[in-house]
């Protein structure tokens, strides 16, 4: 589950995207967003008050991810 060298992003059902590994999160003008912890949750419901991070608001604003996600047949970390 954890990307040691690379970056792994987990799509949480009805919730944020968990980002593990050495990803630089940058603003549109190239400034680096401070990361306070090794694994962060990025808001994808649009409702967080601490964007780009998730603050749990997705649980009370009806956000759902109806994922008909196409998956490749290779899994990571093998």
């Amino acid at each position, binding site marked *: *589950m954890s990307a040691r060298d690379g970056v792994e992003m987990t799509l*949480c059902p*009805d919730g944020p995207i*968990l980002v593990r590994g050495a990803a630089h999160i940058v603003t549109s003008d190239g400034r680096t967003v401070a990361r306070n*912890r090794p*694994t962060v949750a990025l808001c994808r419901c649009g409702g967080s008050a*601490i964007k780009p991070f998730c*603050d*749990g608001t997705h*649980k009370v604003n009806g956000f759902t991810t109806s994922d008909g996600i196409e998956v490749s047949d290779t899994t990571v970390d093998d």
Partner: protein
Amino acid sequence: MSSATLSIQRPAAGSRLPLPAARGPLSEQVLGTLAAGGPGTAVLPSAAGIDPTSDLVADEDVQLTLFCLQELHYRGLEDVDDAWEWDVSAIALRRDLEDAFEAHLRGRVTVPDVVATTADDVARVLFGMTASSGGPSLARFVARKASLAQLREVLVHKSVYQLKEADPHTWAIPRLTGRAKAAAVEIQADEYGGGHLASMHSELFRRTLRALDLDDHYGAYVDAVPAVTLATSTFMSLAGLNRRLRGAITGHLAAFEMTSSIPSRQYADGMRRLGLGEDATGYFDEHVEADAVHEQIAGRDLAGGLVEAEPHLLGDVLFGAGACLLLDDLAAARHLAAFDAGTSSLREVAA
């Protein structure tokens, strides 16, 4: 308890739990025996006859005794010989009390009757259980209308666990394997500030206590809190200390994390409403962000990973989550009733 009483500072205390005052015949005998000398000179009584159908959550004597016996496994008690930790009579008494308390909770906690076999299923069930019930909420009360004195009382209740934040769940790590173990380490490392002392959550909480002119010493307010506050801690320790309950402690952590981000923002909002600054709110601001991460890992990788590895533990995972929610509701209802009545939620203690 007046606010003046709350800010009394004890002289340079160590890291141990100050010996609490007894609350009934059992704690009187147990604390007296513990403080009188090492094991071997005396034995602790048995409590085999405790009735698990009586309200053990509200039983001051039982909860304080259990809290102190469990504390032997954490920091120890002031003036108590460390050798008591593994004394057979201390273990036997702890087990009597834990068995009764567990039986009591199993009779009281409602667990959804569901089938969940994958980690995603387990996370979905846990998020469903913890979705806001509209029940009593201390955080909402703090956000909207708590006075400074009431806010300080809420922090006093919280201090009993938060000054050893994360420790009860750390017991689980050597009992887990694979995905669940990695998840536990990932969460707990963050709780301990990634090894950076000032970022450790228990240290952040001390900073909040100091900002409110409250005593930040370990166990400073144990005498001030009622049985139900102690029960929120004794259940965590019971689930953490007993390997057979590894399902319950992971379920507890998942429910705890899932009911933290939004309430933490409400606590911080309430503090800002009262004019308090970042030194007070920092602990709660951190938990808005951290627990939105932790709840995902705890639900899916920790609890879900454990159920995938040991499917028979699903019931215990849900029991641990349900007990967490029940005890939180009981504590909140009690404290809010006191505030509604214009009284203190704390016990009268001689300062």
